[in-house]
């Protein structure tokens, strides 16, 4: 195959990713006379620079010719750091285009890692990149077959290719391939635990329902074996499925973390993440260079369950404060910064004391009062301030274990969905969805109290048993209680229950 004597610069559309922020990148390849060399410029990281070796081998092993001339690939715009192996395909196609081995202009977004034998491998973060490209007006995507469903789910005309050769054949129109079908959303797994399976515990169940509806954070305290973990595992069954726009964002975070099912990349169920208490802050809030999402972002739109809360390192827990407050986390590193969404319902569980048996009817507590106090002091004040619902999960007496079957999760879920519908109507146009996200101004307009409720809230403030922020957080919970009951006006019992769960004392 003769190399065309052209010095035209090839331009191939690709896409870079910083966190969930995608920006179009044009891979420019120039082949000039000079000593044989191949360099990649435009702030590539190590993985991008190594593309040279993969691209050279892939081109040769696909039966094409790699020019024995001076080859420069530039990732434009050149001032931002690029990372990952997703530019391999675009660089290879650029070399082939610049040397005339690809005869057509390439207008499709090209994403994929190359193997040395020329096959195309999947990369992470296809969904946010494709969404970015769609925003920039590129509708066609050429990517690895494994990524095609994900690109199609993001709304692109996605062509999956197995090898560099088939990519060239498709682009040249020699062997056009059909776009991948839009995959159905991932099936919603039947929750393992149904509320009807758990007897007794009326107040903890009620708190779980409030958390599921309003997105309020919940802490369950009780002796070991009383059902705290069981209750938390029942939470996914109480949450309504994801809205389509929520699903795209949640799936994109999972895509960046490389956690999507290639065939069913679009999440349908709200995520439920339960990191172990040995988790580092990197694992919990994300980090690294380039910054990857942590558990709190993977749980976005869903629930983050922290079992044995005081066993987590205090520093790790304190890093959760920002995402819990802001609903997002910005990870700044020397080379790059990334912002990931982190709007989660926090659910935590802990023992009442180091031995676990304070207040346990079945076993005597062996802890000294000071030890119990220190145990609770392990949790910092600012974190506890962000816990809206604190319930005790006591050991049940035999008669309570045996008593009436409680509501199944399905019934509670319908009530939660109806309450969320009311919240959504109230917050329409703000981008926020749940009562936990109400601003102080919105609390004033949307939390209309009846006389009893007003007197209680006033008294809570006057007696200094709660700070102003504490009262606001309690009013958000009271709003959710009224929403669950289908009432517009917040009643005394709503505020009373919210204050009790807040631990106003």
């Amino acid at each position, binding site marked *: 195959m003769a190399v065309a004597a052209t010095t035209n610069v090839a331009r191939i559309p690709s896409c870079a990713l910083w966190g969930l922020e995608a920006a179009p990148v044009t891979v420019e390849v120039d082949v000039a006379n000079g000593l044989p060399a191949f360099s990649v410029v435009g702030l590539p990281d190590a993985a991008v620079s190594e593309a040279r070796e993969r691209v050279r081998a892939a081109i040769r092993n696909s039966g094409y010719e790699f020019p024995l001339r001076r080859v420069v690939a530039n990732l434009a715009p050149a001032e931002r750091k690029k990372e990952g192996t997703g530019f391999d395909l675009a660089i290879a196609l650029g070399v082939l285009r610049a040397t005339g081995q690809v005869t057509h202009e390439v207008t499709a977004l090209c994403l994929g890692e190359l193997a040395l034998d020329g096959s195309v491998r999947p990369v992470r973060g296809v969904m946010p990149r494709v969404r970015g490209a769609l925003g920039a007006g590129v509708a066609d995507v050429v990517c690895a077959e494994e990524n095609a469903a994900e690109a199609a789910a993001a709304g692109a005309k996605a062509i999956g290719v197995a090898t560099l050769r088939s990519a060239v054949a498709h682009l040249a129109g020699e062997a056009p391939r059909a776009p991948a079908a839009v995959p159905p959303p991932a099936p919603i797994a039947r929750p393992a635990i149904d509320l009807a399976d758990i007897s*007794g*515990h*009326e*107040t*903890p169940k*009620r708190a779980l329902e409030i958390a599921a509806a309003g997105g309020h954070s919940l*802490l*369950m*305290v*009780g002796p070991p074996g009383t059902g705290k973990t069981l209750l938390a595992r029942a939470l996914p069954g109480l949450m309504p499925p994801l809205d389509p726009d929520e699903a795209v964002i949640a799936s994109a975070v999972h895509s960046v973390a490389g956690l999507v099912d290639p065939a069913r990349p679009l999440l349908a169920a709200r995520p439920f993440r339960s990191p172990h208490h040995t988790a580092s802050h990197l694992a919990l809030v994300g980090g690294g260079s380039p910054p990857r999402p942590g558990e709190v972002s993977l749980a976005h739109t869903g629930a983050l369950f922290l079992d044995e809360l005081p066993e987590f390192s205090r520093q790790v827990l304190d890093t959760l404060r920002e995402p819990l407050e802001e609903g997002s986390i910005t990870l700044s590193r020397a080379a790059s910064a990334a912002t990931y969404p982190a709007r989660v319902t926090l659910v935590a569980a802990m023992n*009442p*004391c180091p031995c676990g048996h*304070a*207040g346990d009817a079945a076993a*005597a507590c*062996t802890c*000294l*009062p*000071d030890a119990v*106090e*220190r145990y*609770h*002091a392990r949790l910092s004040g600012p974190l506890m301030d962000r816990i809206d619902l*604190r*319930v*005790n*999960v*006591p050991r049940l*007496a035999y008669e*309570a274990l045996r008593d009436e079957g409680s509501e199944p999760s399905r019934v509670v879920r319908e009530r939660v969905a109806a309450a969320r519908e009311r919240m959504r109507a109230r917050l329409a146009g703000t981008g926020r969805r749940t009562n936990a996200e109400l601003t102080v101004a919105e609390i004033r307009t949307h939390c209309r109290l009846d006389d*009893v409720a007003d007197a*209680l809230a006033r*008294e*809570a403030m006057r*007696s200094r*048993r709660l700070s102003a922020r504490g009262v606001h957080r309690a009013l958000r919970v009271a709003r959710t209680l009224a929403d669950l009951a289908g009432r517009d006006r917040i009643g*005394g*019992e709503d*505020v*009373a*229950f919210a*204050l*009790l769960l807040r*631990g*106003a*004392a």
Partner: protein
Amino acid sequence: MIALAPTDARYPAGLRDLSRPPDPLWVDGDMTSLERPAVAIVGTRRMTGYGERVARELAMGCGAAGVVVVSGLAQGIDSAAHRGALDAGGETVAVLGESIPATIGTLRGRRRPLLPRIREHGALVSEFAAPLGARPWMFAQRDATIAALACVAVVVEAGEGSGALITAAHARTLGRRLYAVPGPIGSSASVGTNALIAQGLATALVSADQLLRAVGQSAVVRVAPQVDPIIDALRDGPLALDDLARRLRLPAAHLSLRVAALVLSGAVGTQPDGRIARR
């Protein structure tokens, strides 16, 4: 902080009953609180909810009647007694097992806020000079001082080998009237007190009135009888909302308004573990 020699006129007379009276006795606070009739209320650090309530009620009875409560500022029963006396507007004396500056320097947590309250309404007392920090023998020696400062001693809860039993033994040696609060048979926190009663070493104490009569006072201001059924249901310690509802045979949802009103009035409170307790 001043040092009182046994020759000082302000030196508490009761301490002269000891074979080796503290010399000097360091006092930080109101000296006159050492001259009034006093009751020692002591007990185990590993108290139960029952013990906490009884210690508090006895101390509140004393505090309201102007009887000084003497104790050792330990965790558990001791600090419940100090707190009860202060909350009832009374005076209390804390006899420390180390020097006063050592305690002020190291005490942390829920007992720390007691220090300024005790100095204002009573006194911190120690027989140890700065910079002595705590040694095990010092606490046993201090237990004798507690017994000597009071004319009546009460052991609220004491397990086997509890330090409160040392105070009880000293009280008997010094000829002080000794009371023990009977507890449930089988409760490890009441083994020591029940044994004192069973062996005839201590009189069973069943009310604050009985205690005040023993020091020659009658309850001038009675502790208001707790009529609210919610407060009554919390007599043996904190309860989860569901347990409270079950005990009162009411649905938990109906209960919250009444409990919240009690919380805001300060009569009950919620604990860090979410249970509801008497204040």
